[in-house]
């Protein structure tokens, strides 16, 4: 019991939580949540029925977004980041999708308890979403102007001149010239970057407080991606729009997000301020993900993760990452790790990290 466990390679030496951090004893049950949050997701579990069986897509997701904050949801395909975004807006197809546990609280109200009618009043007005493929999310047979003004007319109850004015204002806010030429174009007449701006104009036209952006730049070229990311930052500066930015691109998250949550196989494995998580990752998956990045390395030196992402119909018991984890212990195969604070606002769900954090305390205690 006395010898300290050496830190794993690649991980910085674990530090005890800062004095001001949330009390370590109250860790489980929706831990990484602060007061005054705009959005709080606690213990969310979502399942899908499929031909092959029940897909356990989300397994206890805990997240929070403060007003004016940009939270990055980072992870690889199938980790549940998009499902989380869809769940907030109640867009998962019922009854195929079932929310089996947890809550989604927006401004103190539980969204899961709301009727479809009540959700419709929220969507596009206070919470909006933009998607990866703007061509698929715009209606090809209506002009861009018509589609944006429809949202304005529905949610703001205006028509005619005021509706046109609000439409132009929304377009201008996304950096598109609010000219008749743009308003009267059909989606196919615009470039990919312009289409995504039009989608964003629709999303913010009614003063949304929260924008869920699901891979908004993945279909775009890198120079256009930079323009759209800059726009996301500007929307926060000028209009105070809080955002959940869903991305597989660590660079995109690093450049835009205040905090990031790293997801793996339906769970949030690590969450905290962007600079902390990216410069001092604790979770073995976050560390491995970073080492896979080709930045500044020759291909022969690239690190790889053994095995593949688990089938969520029959996910591994305990920690879902344990079959691929170099630091897996017996406990990892049976018990799901709870979020443990490693620094102020930085939470990691890993038995090994929790054990190494606990070790020095035991040394001091007796």
């Amino acid at each position: 019991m006395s010898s300290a466990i050496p830190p794993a390679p690649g991980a910085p030496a674990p530090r005890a939580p800062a004095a001001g951090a949330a009390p370590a004893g109250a860790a489980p049950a929706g831990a990484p949540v602060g007061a005054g949050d705009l959005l709080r997701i606690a213990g969310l579990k979502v399942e899908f029925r499929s031909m092959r069986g029940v897909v356990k897509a989300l397994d206890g997701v805990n997240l929070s977004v403060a007003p004016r904050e940009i939270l990055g949801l980072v992870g690889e395909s199938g980790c549940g980041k998009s499902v989380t975004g869809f769940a907030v807006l109640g867009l998962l197809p019922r009854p195929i999708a079932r929310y089996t546990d947890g809550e989604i609280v927006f401004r103190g109200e539980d969204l899961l308890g709301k009727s479809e009618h009540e959700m419709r009043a929220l969507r596009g007005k206070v919470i909006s979403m933009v998607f990866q493929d703007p061509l698929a999310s715009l209606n090809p047979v209506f002009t861009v102007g018509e589609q944006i003004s429809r949202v304005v007319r529905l949610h703001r109850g205006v028509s005619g001149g005021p509706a046109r004015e609000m439409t132009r204002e929304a377009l201008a806010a996304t950096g598109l010239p609010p000219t008749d030429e743009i308003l009267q174009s059909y989606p196919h007449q615009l470039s990919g970057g312009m289409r995504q701006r039009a989608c964003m104009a629709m999303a913010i036209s009614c003063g949304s407080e929260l924008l869920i952006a699901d891979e908004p730049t993945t279909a775009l070229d890198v120079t256009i991606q930079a323009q759209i990311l800059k726009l996301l930052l500007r929307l926060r500066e000028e209009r105070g729009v809080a955002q959940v930015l869903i991305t597989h691109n660590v660079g995109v998250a690093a450049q835009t997000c205040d905090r990031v949550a790293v997801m793996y196989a339906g769970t949030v494995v690590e969450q905290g301020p962007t600079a902390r998580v990216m410069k001092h990752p604790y979770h073995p998956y976050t560390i491995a993900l970073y080492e896979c990045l080709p930045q500044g390395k020759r291909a022969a030196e690239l690190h790889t993760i053994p095995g593949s992402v688990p089938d969520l119909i029959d996910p591994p018991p305990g920690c879902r990452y344990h079959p691929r984890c170099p630091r897996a212990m017996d406990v990892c195969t049976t018990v799901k790790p709870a979020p443990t604070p490693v620094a102020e606002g930085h939470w990691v769900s890993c038995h090994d990290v929790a054990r190494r954090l606990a070790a020095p305390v035991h040394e001091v205690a007796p």
Partner: protein
Amino acid sequence: MTPLLAVDDLTVHFRIRRGFARRSADVVHAVDGVSFAIDHGHTLALVGESGSGKTTVAETVMQLTRATAGTVAFDGRDLTTLSGRERRALRQRVQIVFQDPYSSLDPRMTVHDLVAEPLRAHRRLSGRELERRILELLEMAGLGTQHLWRRPHEFSGGQCQRIAIARALALEPELVVLDEPTSALDVSVQARILVLLQELKERLGLAYLFIAHDLAVVESMADEAAVMYLGQIVERGPAAQVLRRPRHPYTAALLASVPSPDPDQRHGLKVLEGDVPSAVHPPAGCRFHPRCAFRMAVCETAAPEHRAIEGAGSRACHLPDETVFGLDGKPVGGPVG
């Protein structure tokens, strides 16, 4: 020594018919005067955004698209003028791996048949010899006997790309064209495919023409890099030089647009204004001038010639020869700014 592949002044124009009864025709200038060479065992990366013409170059090298002008010489012989029989023989030595493995592999064929197809058609292998070669190729690509009788839909994207690689290597090519081979894959899967490609290159002495838009991937794979914009190469040279000390404003802007995974390096996402212009009516003079932060009067009228960069490589730009850009997109040390 002749290079393995020498592309000289390659031009590919497509005519698209439009208007009433499709009587008028527009010309898409997909590739305009592109030249580069790849030596045995080397990797050249063609970098650029959508619409820059990099895939058209790859298709022309594969002779899937006909060149309007210019030559594509493989091992000293021009593919564009060869007869059908000779071209088929040469083409066995050049293979391609496409971006989307699900659409480039026949969904009704098993892995066994997918890999056997080129061996049966070109090498006339059969029986035990065929089976031995199939297993050898699968093993090379990191697959095994348990995968033999499955079909593409049973595999993940990364595994499908391995099947495509095994198939491409079946005829022992000397040059493999990799058209965005990892763009559809997650980073952890991408890393494994990149490692595999690098191993195969060293083991088999392959040369790669690597088409990519991800500059970090290019830097990890390429010996040399050529940056394309609107159908033309604007800069080329050793990969480390092009991607670390860019000399063309477009290369610099492209590099500065890549979001760095290091949160400490938030140099405020350098933004290049506007979209890529239409290839039907490319801008006069330098094609990049409408978006260039350093444009001068001459750029609007005269197309810049490729001039050699001191040491290695070349660049097509009117800026003074000594101009070098930093990774934040700003010129360093040069007289511009």
